[in-house]
């Protein structure tokens, strides 16, 4: 799959509910270096608006969101 950037870390949040995907995303992004990209996969439909809010609040850049039935994939670039 050509996504145009290299994923440095994959985070599987399938099956988890609010607020765990967000909390795990925050923990995962802390492990990355500036500019690196995190891929987070979730089944929680609430994680779509919540990831947008998380990105807005923290400033980490939500590069892309992919949506399949019942599956959400987020790409986040660490900005700070």
């Amino acid at each position, binding site marked *: 799959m050509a996504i145009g950037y290299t994923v440095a870390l994959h985070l599987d949040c399938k*099956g*988890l*509910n*609010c*607020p*765990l995907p*967000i*909390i795990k*995303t*925050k923990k995962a992004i802390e492990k990355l270096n500036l500019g690196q990209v995190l891929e987070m996969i979730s089944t929680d439909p609430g994680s779509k608006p919540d990831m947008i*809010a*998380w990105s*807005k*609040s*923290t*400033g980490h850049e939500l590069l892309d969101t992919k949506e399949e039935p019942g599956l959400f994939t987020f790409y986040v670039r660490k900005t700070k």
Partner: protein
Amino acid sequence: MTVTSQELEQMVAAKVKEVAEHRLEQLVNERVRAALEAETRKTARPKRVAIVASKGTLDAAYPPLILATTAAALDMEAGVFFTFFGLHILKKKGLGALKFVPVANPAMPMPMPNLLGALPGMTGLATLMMKQTIKQKHIASIPELMDVAKESGVKLWPCQMTMEMMGIKREDLIDGLEEPVGAATFLEFASHADITLFV
């Protein structure tokens, strides 16, 4: 009406100019806003959330802990003041043993007449069912959320007055808490908060 090719060209050019200018303005606005937001984030103090936890049931323990841990994940500063029955959440014996009370709760998944809910063992049964659902649906448990709260630097204040009133000692409470404080400490913290909540 006949339009000469020259007029047509002028009309197209005017339209293209209008669309391009509008789009350009949009793009500039977006970029400026994003740059401003980034700058504000860099210079401003973190947003602050102040929460009072005043109830000691399983269901009432969730909102303060979910909101506080999520606030921390959003790079906000969060503090929870545990007062009255909310202090129960911080007790070594309370943390994993909080109860869900079916009496006077018309929003039960399976509505239960109050008289039935008041029978011996019904609170235990309702709690068991609630905990099973929590586990099945992969929802964080209260002890898990408490661990996340401590790890992510959420301030957890036991209310000193409640401890006196209920005869609760520091050693009855879990580790990793702030020192017990009074209303003034919480209010001072809350007076610089962007969000204040009472649960």
